[in-house]
């Protein structure tokens, strides 16, 4: 789960990390008022879950009221890579001499957290990571002990951070690691960490992503989840408790188990179709869940056909069949053709229950996918 910049900064500020003065605003007038309270120049920053906001026009500097108004008018309501901007952070512009990078994440290869520091912070940190990985100093952390103070100092010196600010940067890194640990972060970073002409260090941006599997013990952060920021269908999937990812094709896909659903997507592509989504109904799904899954996929107007692929271990074919029947019987006319493939536990019973007038039943995964692709092509032509 991603926090917005303004939420992450609030968490950082409470933990003692210096951040610029700022106010959240949702209208042009609020932006102008906030800017005059903070004092010019200010930065007006879109609050959406999109990387590279600045380059996409979602961050603008304003030296005076006219510019603040213009910035607010252009950013509020704008479409930023598919997300509509409905709030902006108005923030004191920091007069910096240098931009640094500090971050904490999990190194899954090592199975250990890793802290990272670079003297080359700013918008191009991803390129730095690709082209000049040596410029990012790294230190693995033993999760049983946490980040030792010497490690924080070492990684800061290794990164070549100027001596005047090294102590402050190490201290900010230590706080970041504590937040990462206490708040179940998956990625916690500051980029850029700005250095001013009088050697103050300020977090000009803030990233805090939380491990979704740990939200049960982070109720305060769970409440910060901004559902409006998500795709409408992805929000609906959350409500139903499905793993769902929307894609841009027209073959709807429902299955059980992440690996098998991914494989079904790949097969749709392999047989010349385009997957519309990834939808994993998980293990042991009962009839109602199955019906909800169909409802989800039918809600996507891009979908031209649906392939329902279940390999039952703990999921029972007869339960799935009942769910499919009851979901489809509600319609006078089935919205899109549905191809079903059942295998594993109680698959035969399930195939007997399925109403042939409502769905096409296929025996094999390959056969089901080819049929669904064919239906989607026919539907798309009409």
């Amino acid at each position, binding site marked *: 789960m991603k926090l917005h910049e303004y939420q992450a900064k609030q968490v950082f500020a409470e933990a003692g990390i210096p951040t610029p003065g700022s106010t959240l605003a949702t209208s042009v007038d609020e932006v102008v008022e906030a800017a005059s309270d903070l004092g010019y120049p200010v930065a007006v920053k879109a609050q959406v879950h999109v*990387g590279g906001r600045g380059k996409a026009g979602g961050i603008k500097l304003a030296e005076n009221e006219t510019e603040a108004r213009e910035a607010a008018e252009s950013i509020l309501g704008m479409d930023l890579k598919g997300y509509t901007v409905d709030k902006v952070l108005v923030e004191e512009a920091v007069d910096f001499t240098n931009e640094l990078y500090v971050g904490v994440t*999990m190194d*899954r*290869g090592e*199975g*250990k*957290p890793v802290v990272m520091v670079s003297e080359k912070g700013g918008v191009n940190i*991803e390129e730095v*990571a*690709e082209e000049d990985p040596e410029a990012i100093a790294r230190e693995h952390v*033993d*999760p*049983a002990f946490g980040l030792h103070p010497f490690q924080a100092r070492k990684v800061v010196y290794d990164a070549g951070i100027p001596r005047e600010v090294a102590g402050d940067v190490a201290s900010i890194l230590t706080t970041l690691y504590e937040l990462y*640990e206490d708040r*179940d972060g*998956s990625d916690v970073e500051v980029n850029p960490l700005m250095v001013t002409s009088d050697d103050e260090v300020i977090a000009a941006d803030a990233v805090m992503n939380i*491990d*979704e*599997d*740990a939200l*049960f*013990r982070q109720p305060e952060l769970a409440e910060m989840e901004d559902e409006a920021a998500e795709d409408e269908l992805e929000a609906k999937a959350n409500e139903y408790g499905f*793993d769902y*990812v929307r*894609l841009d094709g027209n073959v709807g896909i429902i*299955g*059980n*188990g*992440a*690996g*098998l*659903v*991914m*494989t079904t*997507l*790949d*097969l*749709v*592509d*392999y047989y010349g179709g385009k*997957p519309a989504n*990834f939808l*994993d109904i998980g*293990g042991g799904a009962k009839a109602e869940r199955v019906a909800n899954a169909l409802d989800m996929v039918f809600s996507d107007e891009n979908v031209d056909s649906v392939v329902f692929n279940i*390999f*039952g*271990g*703990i999921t029972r074919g007869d339960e799935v069949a009942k769910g499919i029947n009851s979901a489809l019987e509600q319609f006078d006319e089935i919205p899109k053709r549905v191809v079903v493939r059942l*295998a*594993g*536990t109680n698959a035969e019973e399930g195939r007997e229950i399925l109403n042939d007038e409502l769905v096409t039943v296929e025996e*094999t*995964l*390959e056969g089901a996918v080819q049929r669904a692709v064919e239906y989607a092509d026919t539907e798309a032509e009409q």
Partner: protein
Amino acid sequence: MSILVDDDTRVVVQGITGGEGKFHAEQMIDYGTNVVAGAVPGKGGQEVAGVPVYDTVHDAVDEEDADASVIFVPPAFAADAIFEALDTDLDLAVAITEGIPTQDMAKVNKRLQETDTRLQGPNCPGIITPGEAKLGILPGNIFSEGKVGLVSRSGTLTYQVVDSLTQRGIGQTTAIGIGGDPIIGTDFIDALELFEADEETEAVVMCGEIGGEDEEEAAEYIAQNMDTPVAGFIAGRTAPPGKRMGHAGAIVSGSGTGTAESKINALNEAGVPVGDTPEEVADDIEDLL
């Protein structure tokens, strides 16, 4: 022969009094697995699925000589259950639980390096040696005894491939699901090493998926260390970057690591054929045997 589990494995089920734990304990026993005990704090003295329940895993080991555990404990308590299993020096602990916080697993990972217990999972379907024992939630009826070892990050994808093999009359020595989380115990290389050492295993199927670099590392291991032929499959060729595809570990990072392409190339370079479909994997195995 087989790897890790067989007729003699004595199993304790952690979380046997819960719905999932009880159901699957019964299924495991029906399959013929030697389940000797359950362990649930506060439930000692009860009997579930015909086996005695103890308050601690230590008691189950002391009283019933359990040497492997299967963990069906909810995510909030699962890391503690794994720590408990590791504290008793069992040979094997299989964690089925999905949704354990990653930082809990980082701590478990640290502890693993200090014990002799092997962890499998979490977020995995378990392990089965057909005709002898299953620890976990795999549907026993699709497996058959034979000569092919199988290691996979995904449960239902394993079933799909095994079903294709079984229908062609190709049986399995052992099938092991290593789990779809970012931090796991037994990984591809560990499983491949065990299959390589197993005399009965004549070929191995390895089913990977997007995310991380485990498949690439496994490919290098295969090239350098394995005589037993391997056939591969990689799920997630069409997954977009930055989106978690169900499994917490199945994500192609923004910088492009963890892609299906990189894994398929690595495996091909190691001489491992990678099927475009699960049926093609079964074809490859037929060719290799």
